[in-house]
């Protein structure tokens, strides 16, 4: 009988995995909470808006190639948009919700390809309307064709601030200041890495050229230390920090703007893997808590696989290649998978991925988040928005020795709200380390639900 595979996430990793598994004869179900396939990077706006045009040409080519291939395969795949996976206890116990309905699915294998989200770094005023993260700005541009603001400050580290700044400019927006934390040549020493990523590097250079040519004010090494405005952002104070996180005297610049777009790197959406009991490891700069995986995305839990950025930031190119490898492994029967010929038949892709990963080292160097960043927040700075917990509350908890995520959660309620800690946990980890020397940071006990689901939908469970 054909193997059954469930894929969570329709980004490049999930799409590639679903198509590969289907191509090998598996019965494939693909769930994604988004309206249309594509995931984070290949996000599609509503069909009425037509194709986007602000991404680089090569990226758009890859996007359309993948999405068109998926259109062709779609008739043979049980693709379910607007469907979220909210609990996972193994491949035979997968809980999904759509609208006012839930289902418990069972399969031979489940492939988690739920990607990454952005990491927030708290500073006074960071919750002011108008302050947003790069993904928010990108989805405004890509899926709504609107600009984040009329006059935008872009800041942060890694390649994404460059990309968003260029995309804002290409969409006709105005940039008040561009503040990359690291010199734009960080990571350039790694020539092998650059060579392996040459395709992406060229794209990156084009984005960079767009930003440079526009003549926007560039403030390298500056970070936002305060956002001003009550109902609406009015200005941002940028400054340089010393190693201890103190503001360098006289470096403050206040810049009028109506939007601040930031990216400080990424955290993996790994909750479902943790809930399923997969062995996890912590690597801060590529996503925080990550499932341990082998070359074929196998986790420590039988039948639970992971592909793409969720196993640690890899970029869209690796995500797609890896999706194929993981889809192939999940769809193969254990006997076929165990044969040496299986690995040999994927030799090319394995090598390709290894090379692309070399390039990820370049990106990692650009993503370095100095500890000093976490010292900007003061006691009144909000940390957990859902439960209204500020740094003062956290420090009160630290003072009684509550330094692990479970105990910080219990003593402050941080991470107990709507988002389940997806926003505040990485911040809390860094703040506990900075203020209370709590290291290494333990993992919070994973709990369902990965997404809020109405009681009525839980009660309205159809047979899967």
């Amino acid at each position, binding site marked *: 009988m054909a193997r059954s595979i469930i894929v969570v996430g329709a980004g490049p990793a999930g799409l590639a995995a679903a198509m590969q598994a289907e191509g090998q004869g598996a019965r494939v179900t693909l769930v994604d909470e988004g309206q249309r396939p594509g995931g984070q990077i290949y996000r599609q706006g509503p069909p009425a808006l037509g194709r986007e045009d602000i991404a680089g040409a090569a990226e758009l080519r890859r996007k359309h190639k993948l999405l068109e291939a998926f259109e062709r395969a779609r008739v043979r795949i049980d693709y379910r948009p607007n469907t979220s996976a909210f*609990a996972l*206890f193994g491949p035979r*116990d997968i*809980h999904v919700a759509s609208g006012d309905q839930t289902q*418990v699915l069972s399969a031979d294998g489940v492939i988690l390809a739920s990607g990454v989200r952005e990491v927030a770094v708290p500073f006074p005023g960071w919750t002011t309307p108008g302050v947003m993260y790069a993904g928010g700005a990108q989805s405004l541009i890509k899926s709504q064709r609107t600009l984040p603001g009329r006059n935008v400050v872009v800041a942060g580290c890694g390649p994404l601030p460059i990309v968003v700044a260029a995309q804002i400019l290409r969409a006709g927006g105005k940039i008040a200041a561009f503040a990359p934390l690291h010199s734009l040549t960080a990571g350039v020493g790694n020539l092998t890495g650059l060579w392996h990523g040459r395709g992406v590097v060229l794209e990156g250079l084009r984005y960079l050229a767009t930003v440079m040519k526009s003549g926007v004010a560039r403030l390298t090494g500056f970070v936002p230390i305060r956002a001003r405005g009550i109902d609406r952002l009015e200005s941002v104070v940028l400054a340089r920090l010393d190693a201890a996180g103190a503001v360098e005297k006289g470096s403050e610049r206040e810049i009028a703007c109506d939007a601040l777009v930031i990216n400080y790197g990424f955290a993996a959406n790994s909750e479902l893997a943790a*809930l399923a009991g997969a062995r996890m490891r912590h690597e801060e700069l590529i996503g925080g808590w990550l499932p341990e995986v082998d070359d074929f995305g196998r986790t420590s839990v039988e039948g639970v696989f992971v592909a793409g950025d969720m196993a640690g930031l890899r970029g869209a190119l690796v995500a797609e290649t890896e999706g194929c490898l993981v889809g192939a492994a999940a769809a193969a029967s254990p006997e076929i998978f165990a044969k040496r010929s299986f690995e040999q038949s994927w030799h090319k892709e394995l090598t390709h991925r290894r090379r692309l990963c070399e390039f990820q080292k370049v990106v990692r160097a650009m993503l370095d988040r100095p500890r000093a960043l976490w010292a900007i927040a003061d006691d009144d700075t909000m940390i957990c928005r859902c*439960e209204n917990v500020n740094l003062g509350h956290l420090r009160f908890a630290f003072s*009684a*020795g*509550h330094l*692990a995520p*479970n*105990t910080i959660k*219990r*003593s402050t*309620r941080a991470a*107990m*709200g*709507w988002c*389940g800690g997806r926003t505040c946990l990485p911040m809390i980890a860094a703040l506990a380390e900075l203020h209370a020397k709590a290291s290494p940071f333990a993992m919070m*006990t994973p*709990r*369902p*639900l990965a997404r*809020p*689901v*109405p*009681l*009525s939908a*839980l*009660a309205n*469970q159809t047979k899967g």
Partner: protein
Amino acid sequence: MTNRTADILIVGAGAFGLSCAWWMAKRRDGSRILVVDEGEFAGGASGRNGAGFRMQWGLELNIRLCQESIKFFESAARELDYPPGIALKQDGYLVLAHSEKALKTLEAAVRTQHRFGVPSEVLDAKECIKLVPPLGRERLRGGSFCALDGSASPFLWLDALLRACRRQGVDVVYGIRARSIEPVETRYRVQLDDGPVDVAKILICTDWAAPELLAPLGIDVRTEPLPKEILVTSPAPPAVKPILVSLEHKIAVNQVDRGSVIFTVSRARSGTTTRSTGDFLSFAAPKIVDLVPGLAHVPVLRAWGGVSSVTPDMQPIIGETEREGLFVAVSSYRGFMTSPAVGRIMAAMVLDGDTNDPIASALHPRRFAAGEMIIEPLLNQE
């Protein structure tokens, strides 16, 4: 190896252990008190419960235990010098009956309650629904209500106790397990994870795990683990002022100040895992929607598990064991709401040898061997 010294060792830093420690330390009689817990802060049932307290019981014993405790909760912020307070909410408890038989039981209990000054009353189905509009009408017969019952945050309660204990010099350490107890002359040597400690007296507050330490000494403490699961919703507009308990559904509903609604849903299970299970959500949601259809639209945020203890008569076990200086306090569920009074009683027992307290003498550990069972008519429900 750490060199620890103490006169009194309390094993377990849950609501029982910390409350006992605080009441003992309050005496300032010079005893050095050490509390060890193998887990994290609030890692036991005390950090995983439904947070409800009530004086609506059917036995004098339970009524008094909870009346005293609730009085203490009311003044806890001041008594424990804890300015944030413990999120006290006293909007009452509504115990629901969905059959004539259950209603009769409630009526009898309310008569008993009145004898001890509990301001409870019996409501008919209409009055119940007026009080809690989202309630389902089907089969609902009525309920009993007491406005002094309510809830508090177990986390804040434990944090307040912990800080107050430490201020009074109690040494509270987490991440350290008590592995074994060995009597040495008139004292005890306890093997802790980081070395032995010699103490004069020991109080076991490890709840369902108490037999692990006591059975090797030949002490028979009849308690078993009772695993439960529980879920919480996102904040919703105020709809359920009193805490609800449905005898038939075996559900307790607590909408706390933030608006989140906590549902404790019981089902027959055994074991000691606190892990969440997939079938719990499938099991609990239809029952909840049947009980309070008006809350069906509210999103569930999180589910978790906790393990408490249950004894043969579902009443706590508190007292000195057959070995002098070795004491035990097992909650038999409901240990959040009884922890203030149990702390006071145990402090008197451990420090003064006072076993005359009527509650303490009724709940002594050897009652089962003697064939005594205490029957609480309102138990076996939430």
